[in-house]
């Protein structure tokens, strides 16, 4: 070894080796970093989804409870009867002269200084285009035109069949859009990128136009306007959010009342009717079925085509008429469906049913395949149930009294007399049958799943989960090629499943948070091959790196999650204490994860999320009291409200708002005091 060259080579080799190793090290580190980012992204998604669906479950629970009360409560006076009627009656839209009174817009004067868009009927394409432009410039349509447009819309919808039939012979391509949820920016973007509706450019909007976003009214106005202008080419399907009861909770009612203070009530009333007149599905070339949620193993397109869709005012609650006036028959109808109908959640569960948790299942429960209760409209032995529900309510009241430190009631109170069949006799002949109602709920609420079969959709509280075999059977039965549905937010705005026989299309980008997901729409040409276009209607997201985008969305999710944790502080404390028998004030992080899941029931990967939620632990243990205090500090604002009261109010904020809104039937807000300011 003496030659200079070989030494050079030796060093060169060593250097090369070092560089190689250095590069490998950096790559190894980087890949791990990206993997963790990926995991965070998935966890964030799970957080948003589970909170969203838990909210929906809550609403279903609430309505179950109220429905039950209404069905079995005997009004003591006319006053009470009126009150109930006002709150819960799904009164059909008054016919004839009364309708005129409610649809009356001609008497509404538009002030001279109104600078917003003006409409005249019959609408021309220019009007519709002008409307889009006006809304883009943040103008508001005057109530008179809103009512006029809704009036005309209703007239048009009444003539439509339950299942719209569309052909690609007339327009060369059809564009199908999914949920918009009040996000006007996305609609404007779609029209901008894909072109405005025209005889050559057909559109189908697959439901959920309203709620959550802030421009639901404007979206409806645009969609209805184009539907009137291009009736043969522009189609709308009803979604589960086109429903006045759902709107009470998810923001649309609030938006209308806020934007239209004087005439909001009228607008809501006619909207309630317009929603029931929306078609249930659209069929393209007899081959592609487009509907909002999904299908079940009982889905019967012939029945769906025949029923009077207008009778289904809300999928949240229903009165159904008895078959031949016999309870027994109804029970049989219940048993026929493979997704069974167990006892309502708030009643003690009967032992004959498969073991199910009293509460509605979390996502995890769904994954484990356990069934739990779903909205139940049929009453069994009413008297027995009334007694049971009374006991349940009493137990709950006692628990509340206990928590508040008040003396607990002693003994059971005798059930107050309850008429055996609270809904006998007073039945209107125009109620939908149980089967009809169920068919509509299924197509508006169901979600596809990967496993074969069909089971109750416990996460949403309505409809079912349908497997690839259900899809296959349906497609074969009706000679269809594939299904397009919406209803579920997807990170890429769309998703195929069931061997590409089911396409989910979701058009509200950044749905959970800026950067959370793309929106998409799908185009079908004469060959019916789907062509997907994705977008994200926010310039900011394009400038961010993936890391930043994920961080932002993650922060938002964690904030929402921390809020939920805070809302359950008392229960959490109780649960933590169970793991701390020696009263050391400490629990292991493992116990923390178990406790949190058993209280919140969100089915989240808590051990994955722990580093983001718990930063005050040392050597695997946590001082839980100070952790809860830290949570509270984050949530408490300057208002001097007792934290336990705040906690309870927080937890029930949505429910409370909904209740307030129901009771505040004239939507005036007068006499109602909101102890917490709701978010804008």
């Amino acid at each position, binding site marked *: 070894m003496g030659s200079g060259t070989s030494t050079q080579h030796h060093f060169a080799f060593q250097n090369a080796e070092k*560089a190689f190793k250095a590069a490998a090290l*950096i790559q190894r580190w980087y890949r791990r970093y990206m*993997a963790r980012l990926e995991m965070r992204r998935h966890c964030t998604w799970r957080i948003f989804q589970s909170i969203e669906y838990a909210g929906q479950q809550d609403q279903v629970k609430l309505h179950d409870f109220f429905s039950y009360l209404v069905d079995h409560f005997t009004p003591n006076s006319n006053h009470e009867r009126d009150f109930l009627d006002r709150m819960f009656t799904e009164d059909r839209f008054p016919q004839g002269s009364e309708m005129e009174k409610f649809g009356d817009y001609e008497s509404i004067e538009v002030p001279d200084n109104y600078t917003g868009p003006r409409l005249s009927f019959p609408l021309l394409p220019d009007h519709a285009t002008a409307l889009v432009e006006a809304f883009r410039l943040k103008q508001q349509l005057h109530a008179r035109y809103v009512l006029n447009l809704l009036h005309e819309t209703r007239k048009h919808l009444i003539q439509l069949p339950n299942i719209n039939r569309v052909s690609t012979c007339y327009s060369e391509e059809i564009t199908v859009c999914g949920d918009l949820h009040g996000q006007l920016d996305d609609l404007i973007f779609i029209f901008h990128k894909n072109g405005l509706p025209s005889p050559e450019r057909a559109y189908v909007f697959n439901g959920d136009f309203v709620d959550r976003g802030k421009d639901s009214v404007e979206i409806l106005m645009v969609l209805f306007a184009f539907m009137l202008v291009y009736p043969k080419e522009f189609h709308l399907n009803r979604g589960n959010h086109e429903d006045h009861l759902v709107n009470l909770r998810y923001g649309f009612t609030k938006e209308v009342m806020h934007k239209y203070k004087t005439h909001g009530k009228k607008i809501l009333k006619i909207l309630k009717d317009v929603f029931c007149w929306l078609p249930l599905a659209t069929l393209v070339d007899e081959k592609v079925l487009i509907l909002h949620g999904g299908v079940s193993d009982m889905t019967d397109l012939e029945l769906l085509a025949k029923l009077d869709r207008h009778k289904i005012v809300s999928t949240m609650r229903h009165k159904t008429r008895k078959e031949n006036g016999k309870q027994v028959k109804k029970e049989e109808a219940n048993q026929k469906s493979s997704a069974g109908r167990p006892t309502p959640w708030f009643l003690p569960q009967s032992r004959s049913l498969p073991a199910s948790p009293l509460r509605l299942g979390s996502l995890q429960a769904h994954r484990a395949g356990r069934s739990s209760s779903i909205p139940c409209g049929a009453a069994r032995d009413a008297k027995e149930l009334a007694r049971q529900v009374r006991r349940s309510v009493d137990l709950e009241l006692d628990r509340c009294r206990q928590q508040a430190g008040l003396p607990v009631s002693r003994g059971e109170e005798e059930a107050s007399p309850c008429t055996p069949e609270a809904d006998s006799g007073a039945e209107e002949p125009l109620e939908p049958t149980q089967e009809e109602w169920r068919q509509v709920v299924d197509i508006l609420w169901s979600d596809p799943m990967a496993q074969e079969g069909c089971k109750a959709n416990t996460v949403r509280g309505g409809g079912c989960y349908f497997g690839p075999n259900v899809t296959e059977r349906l497609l074969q039965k009706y000679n269809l090629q594939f299904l397009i549905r919406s209803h579920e937010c997807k990170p890429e705005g769309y998703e195929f499943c069931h061997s590409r026989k089911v396409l989910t299309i979701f058009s509200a980008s950044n749905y959970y948070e800026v950067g959370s997901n793309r929106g998409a729409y799908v185009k079908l040409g004469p060959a019916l091959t789907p062509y997907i276009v994705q977008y994200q209607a926010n310039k900011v997201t394009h400038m961010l*790196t993936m890391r930043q985008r994920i961080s932002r969305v993650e922060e938002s999710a964690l904030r929402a999650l921390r809020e939920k944790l805070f809302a359950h502080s008392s229960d959490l404390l109780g649960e933590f204490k169970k793991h701390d028998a020696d009263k050391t004030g400490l629990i292991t992080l493992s116990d923390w994860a178990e406790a949190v899941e058993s209280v919140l029931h969100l089915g989240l990967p808590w051990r994955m999320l722990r580093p983001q939620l718990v930063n005050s632990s040392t050597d695997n243990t946590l001082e839980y009291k100070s952790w809860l205090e830290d949570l509270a500090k984050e949530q408490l604002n300057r208002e001097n409200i007792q934290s336990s009261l705040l906690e309870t109010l927080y937890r029930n904020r949505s429910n409370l708002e909904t209740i307030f809104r129901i009771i505040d039937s004239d939507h005036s807000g007068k006499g109602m005091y909101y102890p917490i300011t709701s978010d804008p």
Partner: protein
Amino acid sequence: MADDKEREGPDITVAEFHKKIKDAFEVFDHEANNTVDVREIGTIIRSLGCCPSEGELHDLIAEVEEEEPTGYIRFEKFLPVMTEILLERRYRPIPEDILLRAFEVLDPSKRGFLLKEELIKYMTEEGEPFSQEEMEEMLSAAIDPESNSVHYKDYIAMMVIDES
């Protein structure tokens, strides 16, 4: 689970690891049938605190795959292997100072930065090369557009903060 508490020592750790592994696995178990796509295994292993190289990852996958690879990894096979890895503390993450030295090896003249072209060259030609996607993603966060270079000390610091 209550039983685990009464036992002492290593059994608790195993039980704890099992739960952690299960949580991570479930995030990607989209069909709720205790399987994940084999392409997600790397993400799962790395998010459990390990930092294997691609080569090591391939070996691991071979260990947990079926006799006839199906494209899916079952939890029953994954759990014992992953538990072992955690117990043996294999594939430890790379400390910050070692990472810094690695960058310095690639920057022998000690400028304190790497030019974009240099970074691309090393990351796509040396070690276990990046895919184009991986390279683009790294560049988007690492490169300072004005100087078209990555000041690696600052870059590392930023990434590390983001982790904690």
